[in-house]
Structures are given as structure tokens and as C-alpha cells.
């Protein structure tokens, strides 16, 4: 993440993405897998260890985040940091596999679907809550039913149960979910299973902060303390069914100031930090104790061109510049952009220029690469040529006019407030657009207004956008469907471009029913090509995931996916579960702060002493100095 601002945005996008997947209603059946049964013996061992070694020698890993926890209540929390922590606290039905990212068993040992694909039967594992009570299907039933029936509980994951008809338990081990329509994303359900016996007595779920520590959970870690805007302290769950994590404590420490967070990592106040922006990442270079973790990202940054926004019933909305309706103009704009320069300058080279569309090359299978005649490279002359040919003549001020001579090509570029990357991007685009005779002015919007204007009311010309793409890119492609456009009253939708193209629709429908994977991949690539050449959106680059950790503190960590994956912010608990820490005699945090303490105390005493000395000296001197 570049800064807190962006960090907040991303999870929201991810959030809504999950929701949309849920709604898309596609069924994919996962393999039933048996997990390890948690044994009482292990738990006993964990407890014994804790007893043996109460203070010193604790293995602690401290994770820096630049986003504060919005709520510890999983029914309410939407921020990435919160949902990540919930991933570590609670069991889910399934968890993405650490290698393939495909759904794999978590609390659900195995599952099956009925033939009409409307009924799902999950077999719940024999696991225990951290307070010793058994996890049962009743817990899952309570969790889902609560979200389905209690308005206040819908905040975080309401849409994920929208399609649920009913949730029941035939016995303590068997969970049955009936859906209204087939739902492919069932196995990616983002809802943690909550302990019914604890939560039943809560009363108003919307007002509960889940602050009875230690919080009862079934994940690898137990939250034992949370200071708002400061930190969350988690302890290893000795009774975790997969076996307790190898460290004792995990601290999530909040920094408002990303610079301070970086300094904290360098100094050793924290051990790991994710979602860095490029300059921060670069600032970590050269530190022998720090590993710079640079992995291909699953995100695509692209421009959204208002090529004549329409509502779902084809009524024009908004005030997009008419020139953008002309594919040649969009093409010319595409030629004007130097993607490599953007990567170098805006992302410090820590990204891949987008020679493709909205699916990043990280997904090698689905990624479509523009080649040959399709490939649009940075070529201002060609862009100018296209515009000249299309009849957009340059005026005396170097700005082009519409062919009818009535309007200048003066466009707005909508970005979010407080996003330096977008700011910088705007500066570059403005420069390049000037070269091709288009005047671009930057319009900064807060995220509420941004969403409204670029997603509903169409009050924009060009806007920045981005999407974190899932292993299956279907969802991101769906955001360019006719059906995603908003209603006339400005609701619903979820379009990323107001795009509505018969060809594209056709390809989409085709891939839906194409069961042959290579053929489906081909269809998906064609959709990307269509987006690339018609340019309702123009992909700019695919930013890398930038992270860093201290290797003197973290002995081992498994990214997700294991091959070049990310450490923080992914779904699943693998990286934190797999953490191995170098044990220090006394926690380095304590060490650092106590040295500091001593130095600070000495400084204070020195200042006081100096002050006192000055004062006494003055007393003495003043007595006869003057009257």
C-alpha cells in the first residue's frame, strides 16, 4: 500500500469483490481433504511450555501496519488489517491452499453439493474453541443465521449470505446450507465461524466490540489485548487443531506515519511490514538485517475513460467529454502514455508496464499480452497522427478542437485526494496529453465522491482505477458488463467503465459455459484484447507487492502462495502461522525501550539538574546584581 489512504481502499475493493463473487453464483466443488486433528497432548505441551518460560525467551514477532483496526467484531470489521486478524483468530469453512490458493479444508473437513447445486453439506471438523468447548455445526449455523437475520451483523459480510436460503445443522458435525441460486463462490466464503456459546449472550451485536480478552476463537492465534489506534496482541493458540504456531506472540502494531513505520522496521521496533510503497521499499535497501520482499502483484492499475456513460437501460448519464466516445481518441490517448516511464517514475520501477489489459501477468495462464499490431507503445507522433486524421485540429494554443469546432479537448482527470501515486500519475498524464493536444486538469475527490462520480453518475472524463484480481479473473472481467451499469436512480451496478459492448458480452457468456479450460482461457484472453483495443479502460501497470522483514528476527516465513507469494494481507493464515522467530533472551522490544528509558531518564535528570543549577546560580547572582 502506498499510504494509509490507499491501504484502506484496497481491502474495500477486495471486500466487494468477494461479495460479487458470492453473487455471481458459480459453483466450484473443492476436494475434500482431511486436516490434522488437534490433540489434547499438543495443547498440554503448549501450556507446559508457557508455564516453564513465562517471560524471557518468548518468541515474539511484531508486525507493523499503517492501518488501524476498525473493529474487532468480525460482523462489523471491513478493513484489511481487521479481517486479517480475524483470519488468524477464527476458523473459516475453508482456507485457500498455501500453494494453489484453491479452497482447502479449514473447519469444514469436507463438503459436497447436491445435484441441483443448491444444497451444500459441510462436515465440520472436531476442533475446540480456545476456551475448550468443542466447535460444532451449531456455531456455523448461528453465525450465518445471525448475519442473515440481524441487520447490524450484516455490515461486514452481509452480501456473502444474500444468496443463502437456509442454514441448518443436521447434527453437531454436519452443516447444511441451501442457496437460492447456485453459488460457485461458496467455498470462498469470507465469514469466520463464531463461537455461539460466547456470542449468544452478547445482545446488540452492532454495539459489541468483541473485547472480552482473551477472545474465544478457533484460529492459530488468540487475541489477548487490543489498544485502539495502537496495537493488537495475539498469543499462539496452544490448542489449535493444526498444532500451535511456532512463535509465542504476534503483535500487530499500528503506525499512522508510514515513514515512522519504516524507521521502526530499520530500528527493530517491528519485524515485518507489508504493503509498502515504492520509496519506502527502496529505503530498506542496504540494510543487512532486512529482507526486501518484492513479489508480482495481483493488482492492475488502469484508467477509466468515460466513453459515453449510460445507465442499465441505456440512458446517457453524466458529462463525459464527447471526444472520448470516439475510439480513435481513446486509442490516441493510449499511444500518448509511456507506461514504462510510469513504472519507473511512479512506482520506482517496482511494477510491470501493462502490455495487456486488466489481468496481471502474475496469472500466467489468463494473462493476455499484446503483441504485434495490437501492441500500443508510447508514440506521441502516432497519437497526434491519429487525432489529426480523425479531424481533431489543434488550435492556436496547442489544444485540439472537436471536429465540429465547438469544443476543445479539455478533460478532467479524476483521482482520489491524498494519494501521492495518483497525484504523480496525474502530473505525468497531464504532460503527455499536452503533447498530443489534450488539456488535462486534475480533479481530486474523496473516495465517497469518487465512487459516486465514476461508478454511478458518470461525472468524469478520465478516472484512475485499479483492481486486485483473483486467481480466476472472471469477476474483474464481469465489471465491464452491460448489466453492471447503474440504474437510473444511481444504484446497484458495480461497473468499472460503463462499458457495454455486444462482442464483449458474447465472449463473456461463452466462457461461462465453456468447460474446456484452454478454450475458456482463450475466450478470456479475447475479452482482454477487446478491452485493450477498444480502450474503455487503459491498463497502465501491474504494481508489485512490496514488503520487508528483519531476517535477524524472523527465521522463516511462508508466503502465500508459497511460490513468490505475499506475506501480509493475503487471505489465509499461512504466513503468520508458519512464522519462526529467532528467540532473543529478552524481547527486543523490552530491550530497546528499556535502553531508551534509561537514556531518556538520564536526559531528563540532566535537564533538571542543569535547570536547577542555572536557577540557583541565578538566585545567587541576582541578589546583589541590581537593586
Amino acid at each position, binding site marked *: 500500500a502506498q499510504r494509509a*489512504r490507499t491501504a*484502506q481502499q484496497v481491502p*474495500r475493493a477486495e471486500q*466487494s469483490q468477494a*461479495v460479487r463473487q458470492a453473487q455471481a453464483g458459480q459453483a466450484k466443488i473443492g476436494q475434500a481433504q482431511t486436516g490434522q486433528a488437534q490433540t489434547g497432548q499438543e495443547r498440554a505441551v503448549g501450556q507446559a511450555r508457557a508455564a516453564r518460560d513465562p517471560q524471557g525467551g518468548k518468541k515474539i514477532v*511484531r508486525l507493523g501496519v499503517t492501518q*488501524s483496526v*476498525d*473493529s474487532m467484531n468480525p460482523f*462489523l470489521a*471491513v*478493513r484489511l488489517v481487521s479481517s486479517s486478524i480475524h483470519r488468524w483468530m477464527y476458523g473459516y469453512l475453508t482456507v485457500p491452499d498455501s500453494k494453489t490458493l484453491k479452497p482447502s479444508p479449514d473447519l469444514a473437513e469436507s463438503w459436497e453439493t447436491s445435484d441441483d447445486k443448491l444444497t451444500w453439506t459441510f462436515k465440520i471438523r472436531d476442533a475446540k474453541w480456545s476456551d475448550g468447548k468443542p466447535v460444532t455445526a451449531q456455531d456455523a449455523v448461528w453465525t450465518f443465521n445471525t448475519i442473515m437475520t440481524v441487520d447490524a451483523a450484516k455490515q461486514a459480510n452481509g*452480501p456473502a449470505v444474500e444468496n443463502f436460503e437456509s442454514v441448518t445443522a443436521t447434527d453437531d458435525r454436519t452443516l447444511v446450507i441451501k442457496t437460492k441460486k447456485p453459488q460457485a463462490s461458496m467455498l470462498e466464503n469470507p465469514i469466520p465461524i463464531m463461537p455461539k456459546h460466547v456470542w449468544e449472550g452478547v445482545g446488540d451485536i*452492532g*454495539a459489541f*466490540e468483541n473485547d472480552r480478552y482473551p477472545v474465544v476463537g478457533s484460529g492459530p492465534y488468540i487475541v489477548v*489485548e487490543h489498544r*485502539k*489506534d*495502537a496495537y493488537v*496482541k495475539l498469543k499462539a493458540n496452544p490448542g489449535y487443531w493444526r498444532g500451535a504456531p511456532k512463535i509465542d*506472540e504476534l*503483535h500487530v*502494531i*499500528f*503506525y*499512522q*506515519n508510514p*515513514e*515512522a*513505520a519504516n*524507521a*521502526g522496521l*530499520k*530500528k527493530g*521496533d517491528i519485524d515485518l511490514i507489508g504493503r509498502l510503497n515504492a520509496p519506502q521499499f527502496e529505503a530498506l535497501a542496504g540494510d543487512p538485517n532486512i529482507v526486501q520482499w518484492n513479489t508480482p502483484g495481483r493488482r492492475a492499475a488502469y484508467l477509466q475513460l468515460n466513453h459515453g456513460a449510460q445507465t442499465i437501460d441505456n440512458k446517457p448519464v453524466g458529462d463525459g467529454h464527447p471526444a472520448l466516445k470516439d475510439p480513435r481518441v481513446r486509442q490516441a490517448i493510449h499511444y500518448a502514455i509511456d507506461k514504462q516511464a510510469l513504472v519507473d517514475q511512479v512506482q520506482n520501477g517496482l511494477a510491470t508496464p501493462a502490455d495487456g489489459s486488466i489481468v496481471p501477468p502474475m496469472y500466467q495462464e489468463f494473462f493476455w499480452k499484446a503483441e504485434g499490431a495490437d501492441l500500443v507503445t508510447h508514440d506521441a507522433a502516432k497519437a497526434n497522427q491519429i487525432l489529426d486524421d480523425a479531424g481533431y485540429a489543434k488550435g492556436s494554443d496547442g489544444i485540439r478542437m472537436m471536429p465540429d469546432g465547438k469544443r476543445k479537448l479539455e478533460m478532467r482527470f479524476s483521482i482520489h485526494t*491524498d494519494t501521492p501515486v495518483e497525484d504523480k500519475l496525474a502530473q505525468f498524464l497531464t504532460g503527455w496529453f499536452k503533447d498530443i493536444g489534450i488539456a488535462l486538469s486534475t480533479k481530486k475527490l*474523496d*473516495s*465517497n*465522491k469518487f*465512487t*459516486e462520480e465514476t461508478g454511478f453518475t458518470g461525472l468524469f472524463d478520465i478516472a484512475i482505477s485499479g483492481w486486485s484480481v483473483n486467481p480466476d479473473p472472471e469477476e474483474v472481467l464481469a465489471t465491464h458488463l452491460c448489466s453492471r451499469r447503474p440504474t437510473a436512480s444511481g*444504484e*446497484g451496478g*458495480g461497473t468499472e467503465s460503463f462499458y457495454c459492448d455486444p462482442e464483449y458480452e458474447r465472449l463473456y457468456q461463452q466462457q461461462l459455459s465453456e468447460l474446456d479450460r484452454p478454450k475458456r482461457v482463450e475466450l478470456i484472453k479475447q475479452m482482454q484484447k477487446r478491452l485493450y483495443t477498444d480502450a474503455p479502460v487503459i491498463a497502465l501497470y501491474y504494481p508489485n507487492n512490496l514488503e520487508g522483514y528483519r531476517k535477524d528476527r524472523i527465521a522463516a516465513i511462508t508466503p502465500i502462495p508459497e511460490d513468490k507469494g505475499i506475506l501480509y494481507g493475503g487471505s489465509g493464515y499461512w504466513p503468520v502461522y508458519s512464522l519462526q522467530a529467532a528467540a532473543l533472551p529478552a*524481547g527486543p*522490544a*523490552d530491550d530497546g*525501550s528499556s*535502553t*531508551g*528509558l534509561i*537514556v*531518556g531518564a538520564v536526559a531528563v535528570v540532566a535537564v533538571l539538574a542543569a535547570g536547577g543549577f542555572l536557577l540557583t546560580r541565578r*538566585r545567587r547572582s*541576582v541578589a546583589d*546584581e*541590581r*537593586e
Partner: protein
Amino acid sequence: MTAPSEVDPGTPFDVEPAGPAGPGGERGARRTVLRYALAKAGGAVLSIGMVIVATFFLFRLIPGDPAIAYTRDVPLDPAQLDRLRHQMGLDKPLMQQFLDFVGRTLTLDLGTSYEYKRPVADLIAERVGPTLVLVGTGLVIAVSLGLWQGTRAAWKHGSRFDRFSTGLSLVLWSVPTFWLGLLLLMVFAAGVGPIPGIFPTRGMEDVDAPDGPLYLLHVAHHLVLPCLTLVAVVYAQYLLVMRSSLLDEIGQDYVTTARAKGLRDDQVRRRHAVPNALLPTVTLVFIHIGFVVGGAVSVETVYSWPGLGLLFYEAIQGPDFAVMQGTFMVVCTAVIVMNTLADVAYHVLDPRVRSA
């Protein structure tokens, strides 16, 4: 913000010369204090009312639908949105909405955060403590340091100490708070070159902060840099004000009288000049609480100090208008209340205005 002007912007009360008071003067004075306090409280209530009204209309100016803002970009169907709008009272006439707003505000219901989905009042309550610690400590240090140094500078008017103090405070006053904070953070927390980072990089406390008296030391350690930043910027102003205020007093006849009585220099200063100079200065100090609070936003942001300023900053970043609105109201109200208390205290302390 006021420039470090040598001229105070007038006492907040109009000092009337008082006529002779009889032996019942003391009781009469107490009654007038009470009346004054009531009048001031009335004024404060009015001011707070103005804050509420201003907040309502200011935040109603924001284009866009609060319901959509509230749901963020989770697409909702029209019926759901309508339900939400109804819930939020957005379908009522503006006047009704205003009355509702006033009613809710008066019952300390400041709305629900868009971001946290929790009552804004709770969010604020959680963050008041750290801000009080930071601003309180900062203010105490800034005031005592500023007044002490200002006194000394004025008394030795034109001396090297005076020139140094004035110069230093002018420099400090010219420094943007956040910038100073960043520099201090980089030098003393992160460490530069040979300077080790001896102070923490963030927050008020670490995980596993010690208990008992050590906890205070722990927080104090975290407090050093933020407090230093706040003090540096704020105290300069107090220094300058105290200095000019005392300079005014030094020229007064009663100071000459005191000297004529054979008092020592420090006695003249401590017993006569300073108490007189102090009163207007202290008023100004309180008027500037608002300024300090502004500084706290920067400082808390730079040092991730979990206080109101940080909450406000986050709300701006969101933007979470509900939190912004709530924080704004609470901070303004607090400042107004503080000022009123200060006014009344001043009134009780200063015999000149006490019985006026």
C-alpha cells in the same frame, strides 16, 4: 492562530473601573462572580449552540448522499438504500433533520462512524485519554517554560538571554509543527548517523508495557518526542506574550513604588510585576488552547499518537464525515468550555475584574 504579537488581542472581558465597595464588598463580590460565571456559562452555551448549528449546516453542504457514503462502495439495491435513508432520517425536511440532529447531539449521540460502524461518541471517548495526556503535559510544560523564560527575558530586557530567547522562540514559532515533528522523529527516534534512535517511533505505549509506576515511565518515554514537538511550537508564543506583558508592567508606577520600598529586584519581580503580567497572559494561553489542539493533530499524526487528533486525521483521510463532524463538535465544545472556565477563574483571581 495568532502571530506572536506583542499586543494581546484585548482582554476577553471589558474591565470596568469599580466604585468603592462597602464592608459587604466580599459577599457582593461573590455574588457578582456568580453572576459573571452564569453570564459566561450562558455565552458558552450560546457558542456551543453555534458550533452545533454550524456543524449541521457545514456538513450538510457536502454534496453527495450520506447514505451512499455510509455504505461505502458496497452496492445496495434501491430498497435497502431507501431503508437506510429513512433510518438516517434523510427523507425528512431539513428543519426536522436539524431538530433531530440537535436532539441527538444533546443526548451525546454523535452518529455512527462510516468507517468503524460504531458510535462516534464511543470512538471519541476512547481517544480522549491519550490526547489529554499529550496536550495536558505539553501545555503544562509549555506554559511553565514559556512564562518562566518570558519573565526572565523581559526582566533582563535587551540582555543576551533576552535576545537568545526571543530569537529562539521566533524560530520555533516559524517552524511548521509537523515538519519539526518529522525531523525530531527522524533524528531521535529513527536515529541518524551516530545518533542512536533512543525514543520510540510511535504511539503512547508498546505491547507489554510494564505495569505500575514503570508504566508511567514507559508512557513518559513515548511522550518525550511528541511533547517536545508540541511544546517547542507552542511555548514560543507564551514566551513572547509573557515577555511583552511583563515589559508593559515594568514601566508601571507600582513597580517603581515597590522598588522605592526597598524591595530586592527579585522580590519586585515575583511579588509585583509577574502576578500582574501573568493574568492577561494566562487568558491568552487559554484562548490558544484551540491552537494547541490544532498542533496536536499534526503531532499525533506524525507520532501515531492514539488520540483525538489522529482520529480526526483519519476521518479526513476517509473521509468519514460522521467522525469528522463528531470530533469537530467535541473539540470545539471542549475548547469553549475550557475557555469559559479559564475566564471565570481569571475573574475570580483578578481582583480588578472580580467585583466589577
